């Protein structure tokens, strides 16, 4: 029974993420207008045939912005997650493989990274970026920064996994059989670390989507006029307590669904691992 339920929710999650991916890939065809086009005579409009989800306070079609916003979050968050997992694998894997003083040094660096208030660091680093870069380059940089700064927690997990593997019987046997260095890592360590690495990759995706949303909510995420799920959430800051419109909550609902789907897939990955 439990197995059937897991399969059902997993299928639903995959289906929803696939639909989201499809919608974002073909946003150019599905969106009724550009994400930046301002219909200044129809600001804060309700849902209509012309604007399925109404318009925002500058008259931009909300449906188009959600599609393009999802594209940014869904494509760049995995990129940042891949980068952070790679860095975590390098640092954590090396620490676990070498052990001793090298491990302590690596873990010291990891602790240092974990103790940094990353939000302030991101804000500072972003303020130092050149001003005349396109919104696309700016958003790519933001996600790359998230990837570069977000590897430390994963590195601890990978390090623990690598340390356990190095102490396992089969690795002792491999070493006794003459395996060492790159060959040992390639043939024994990495294949056995793969489930942990995949789980860390999957966990990082929603974390980075939410991190970008946090930056977006502070106005420090994606530059105008490019939308992201984070920047679209900013609509909820203006007067929503006083005159809520259901359409303003669509980006929040999309974010929750996307993050929820990733969470279901992560749980499945952890079970498999």
């Amino acid at each position, binding site marked *: 029974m439990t197995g059937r339920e897991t399969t059902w929710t997993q299928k639903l999650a995959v289906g929803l993420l696939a639909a989201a991916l499809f919608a974002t890939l073909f946003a150019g065809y599905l969106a009724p207008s550009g994400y930046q086009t*301002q219909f200044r005579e129809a600001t804060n409009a309700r849902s209509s045939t012309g604007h399925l989800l109404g318009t925002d306070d500058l008259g931009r079609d909300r449906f188009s912005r959600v599609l393009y916003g999802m594209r940014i979050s869904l494509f760049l968050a995995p990129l940042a997650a891949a980068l952070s997992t790679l860095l975590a694998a390098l640092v954590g894997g090396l620490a676990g493989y070498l052990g001793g003083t090298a491990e302590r040094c690596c873990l010291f660096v990891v602790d240092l990274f974990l103790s940094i208030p990353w939000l302030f660091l991101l*804000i500072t680093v972003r*303020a130092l970026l050149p001003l005349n870069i*396109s919104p696309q380059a*700016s958003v790519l940089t933001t996600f790359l920064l998230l990837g570069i700064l977000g590897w430390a927690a994963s590195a601890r997990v990978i390090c623990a996994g690598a340390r356990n593997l190095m102490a396992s019987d089969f690795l002792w046997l491999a070493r006794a059989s003459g395996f060492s260095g790159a060959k040992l890592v390639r043939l024994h360590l990495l294949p056995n670390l793969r489930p942990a690495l995949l789980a860390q990759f999957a966990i990082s995706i929603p974390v980075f989507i939410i991190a970008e949303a946090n930056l977006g909510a502070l*106005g420090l995420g994606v530059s105008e006029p490019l939308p992201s799920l984070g920047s679209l959430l900013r609509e909820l800051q203006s*007067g929503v307590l*006083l005159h809520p419109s259901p359409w303003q909550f669509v980006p929040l609902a999309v974010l929750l669904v996307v993050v929820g789907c990733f969470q279901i897939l992560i749980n499945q990955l952890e079970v498999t691992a």
Partner: protein
Amino acid sequence: MKRFVLFPLIVLITAGAMAQSGSELRFCVRSEPKSLHPLLAEEESSGAIVYLTGGVLLRVNRATQEIEPELATSWKLSQENRTIQFTLRSGAHFSDGTPFSAEDVAYTMQQLMDPNLHSPTGDAFRSGEGKVTTKVIAPLRVEIAFPAPVANLVRLFDTVPILSAHSPQKEMAALGPFYIAEHKAGTYILLKRNPYYWKKDAQGKQLPYLDAVRVEIQQSREIEALRYKRGEVHLINVVLPDIFESFGADNSSLVRDAGVSGDAEQLWFNQSPAKSIPAYKHAWFTSTSFRRAVSEAINRADMARIIYHGHAQPAIGPVFAGNKFWVNNKLKPHPYNPSEALRSLKGDGFRQENGQLLDKLGNPVEFSIITNAGNHARESMAAMVQQDLAKIGIKVNVVTLDFHSLIERISDTFDYEACLLGMLNADLDPNSQMNIWLSSEPNHQWYPSQKTPATPWEAEIDRLMRAQASATDDHQRKELWDRVQEIAWEQEPFIYLVNKDALVAVAPTVKNARPSPLYPQTYWNVEELALAPAGH
């Protein structure tokens, strides 16, 4: 047992009902006051307490913009604004009963100019090297002499609360309509009616009408608005346009548009010879015709209509239309005319290729606008400028920065191309803008701290500003200031975008309120305010 439970319940309900119907006015400020010393007020929350508790020699009437006598019944200026003599009101007392006299004014001036106190109010009076001397001529007559002429001297006394030289309560003794009775840090400050307040109404009844004012500390404007709607606070000095619209739709009597204010939004190009700006971009930014073309391509009316829901006016210059005496009425807003802007740019050698504007050297016209993150209206304005300028082929990159980084770029490193920011001209007098218009000043934003004026028109503004500051006749000063406004209009070092209306909320139960666009918008006549029981 029931009786014992019921009794405290009745007491609580009765207390609640009395709090609702009693004459305690409540409003919110954004933060805890940094200081309760009357001479150390520098931010909104300290300013509110000082305004409500401080007695001043004269007051600028926020409705008529005229100076009116308060603790001084008359005054006389002499020696080209170097000396001022006040005749004081007799029979006035501090909140603890200590009588008011010329010695208190002398003591206040001594404290105000004490360099160890670092009074921000005192900074405006520092006109030159040398000491400020105060002479008590008689118990109710005092003369204050400054080492050099002080610009806008009379009006400056509107901001100086008089301290007591003899009261055991020292600076906490108040001459204003209220005194501080209770302070719960981070929560509220309770002000109670000053029983010795000197002012009376036309019927001879002693003012203020209110028994108390509770100043509550509330950071969130939305929560403040919700509390106002629930009747828990009576006034809001600054209502956001979205909230204003929402309230207005529910009940138009909840909010008021007090008219256009000195709160302006403006855009400027960095004209300083910063290394970070390429020479070809520096040439655009220092070109008057480029700035004017950009200005002409921006639809200010749309900004006022969309972002401020019609509660803003296209801005004309450094003086807002509500500044009755000092505004230059000959000037009109720059028209929105993108085709004329493009024609003018083409006349300067710019050309369009595939919709992109190129300069005469073939460089694509593209620049970044920085603004502070978190200000939704400002970010929306930048997005509108982006779309408007795209119509004439100019590509704009909008960059939002945290406030500290933004200030560092515009005042220290000068590593930016254009900036969109607001400016609040709370003071009506042109002298309050000396630090912006003089080319040598660090607040001359487009090219600060110049050794010598970079352009002939900046040299001309320097000359006019200095001349108006030293002139004694206001009509002569007005002529000089009018010319400065004309040059600012022609050259557009600041591209003024909109002047926001002062949107305020005054509960229908508050009587005698006359909201003004000038600070403090809703309670400037607090001694006349009264509370009617709810439902009346």
